[in-house]
């Protein structure tokens, strides 16, 4: 009997062919040790290739990929409300631009003054600057009473809110406080890392302008990322490297959904 053509072996090895066809080839293999050896070698290749590259499957996605997905999701939610094709695409372009800006190429960029989003962000940075320097009374309610803090702020805000966990960035919750804002009561959570750096998460009732992607704002030494998601506007502020701050903002966004 003629040797089995290699193309047929490749198809067989890839699991192709009907059961009758495969059975026929399997029979021919019995008298073709060379073909059997080849199939075994290919199995071994597949196993080696599988093992060599499998490690990445369990790794968390790099920050850059997660941010691209978050921007797209934010945009989709905004788009679902607006139900307009052009603004949706524009929002996508803007989201990507702003992610670029967050990366530094538009460092120092300020949102147009007077817009509600910009005002919200300003307020968040002012609150941040006011309270992070506090040694004795940085917060009204400490992290030890986290449950009470959450209930109290949720009630005053009129919207459920909990303090996100920033442990992955090395920051632990100190506590929170209630603040006045243009749109009603605002909540602020404060976090601290081992070196004494502080970041704040500020949340206030939304400005009604729809969801946005992350935006970057800078004021003195403090910088922040802010976004609108549903009923609330959020801002994360701190005097720490922008990449770290962005990671914290992403963590907040993930947990506040």
């Amino acid at each position, binding site marked *: 009997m003629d*040797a*089995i*053509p*290699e*193309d*047929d*072996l*490749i*198809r067989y090895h*890839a*699991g*192709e062919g009907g059961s009758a066809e495969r059975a026929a080839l399997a029979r021919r293999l019995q008298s073709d040790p*060379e073909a059997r050896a*080849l199939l075994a*070698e*290919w199995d*071994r*290749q*597949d196993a*080696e*290739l*599988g*093992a*060599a*590259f*499998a490690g*990445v*499957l*369990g*790794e968390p*996605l*790099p920050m*850059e*990929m997660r941010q*691209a*997905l978050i*921007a*797209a*999701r934010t945009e*989709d939610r905004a788009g679902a409300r607006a139900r307009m*094709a052009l603004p*949706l*695409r524009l929002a*996508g372009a803007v989201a*990507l631009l702003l992610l670029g800006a967050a990366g530094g190429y538009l460092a120092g960029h300020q949102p147009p003054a007077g817009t509600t989003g910009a005002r919200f962000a300003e307020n968040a940075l002012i609150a941040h600057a006011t309270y992070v320097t506090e040694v004795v009374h940085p917060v009204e309610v400490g992290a030890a009473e986290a449950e009470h803090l959450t209930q109290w702020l949720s009630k005053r805000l009129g919207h459920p809110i909990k303090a996100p966990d920033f442990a992955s960035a090395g920051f632990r919750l100190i506590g929170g406080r209630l603040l006045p804002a243009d749109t009603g009561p605002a909540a602020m959570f404060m976090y601290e890392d081992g070196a004494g750096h502080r970041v704040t998460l500020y949340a206030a009732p939304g400005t009604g302008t729809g969801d946005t992607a992350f935006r970057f704002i800078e004021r003195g030494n403090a910088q922040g990322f802010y976004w609108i998601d549903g009923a609330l506007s959020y801002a994360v502020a701190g005097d720490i490297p922008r990449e770290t701050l962005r990671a914290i903002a992403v963590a907040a966004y993930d947990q506040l959904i």
Partner: protein
Amino acid sequence: MSVLDEIEAAIPRLRRAARALARDTAAADDLVQDSLERALLRRSHWRGDGPVAAWIWKIMLNLHRDGLRRTADHLVVVSGAAEPADTGGAATDHLALTEVQAAMARLPVDQRQALVLVAIEGQSLKEAAAILGVPEGTLVSRLGRARASLRVMTGRGGPGERKGRAG
């Protein structure tokens, strides 16, 4: 599942494939990042003709091929006279891994892509051929050549020709 969910779900496997396609880890993640951004920008134009996964795979493999064309990486000489590996010794398993990675890197891009889709991803020949945009017969012969080269480069056999491989 939304298009976005499907795109997201495909990423880990795209990353695995990219590790096998690109020259190093950073280049692999750059390739996936570029593919992801391209897919996200175009997702509103997605008309649902076929699986989302196949579409994003196509995006990545095309970007990979175009990238190589630009950097002329594909001109790296693939020699049939690769050093046969030392098959003895206790560290064989570890060696075999790095060896198979090195061998992949030396395959011509078309063969590498074919092997990634079929041997690593476990796609059917039909799916893989559709993603690569080539007839199934072409894919089969690329796989045959890729497997033969890999065998030589990992030191497990001479360049013996078996009949029946299409050109």
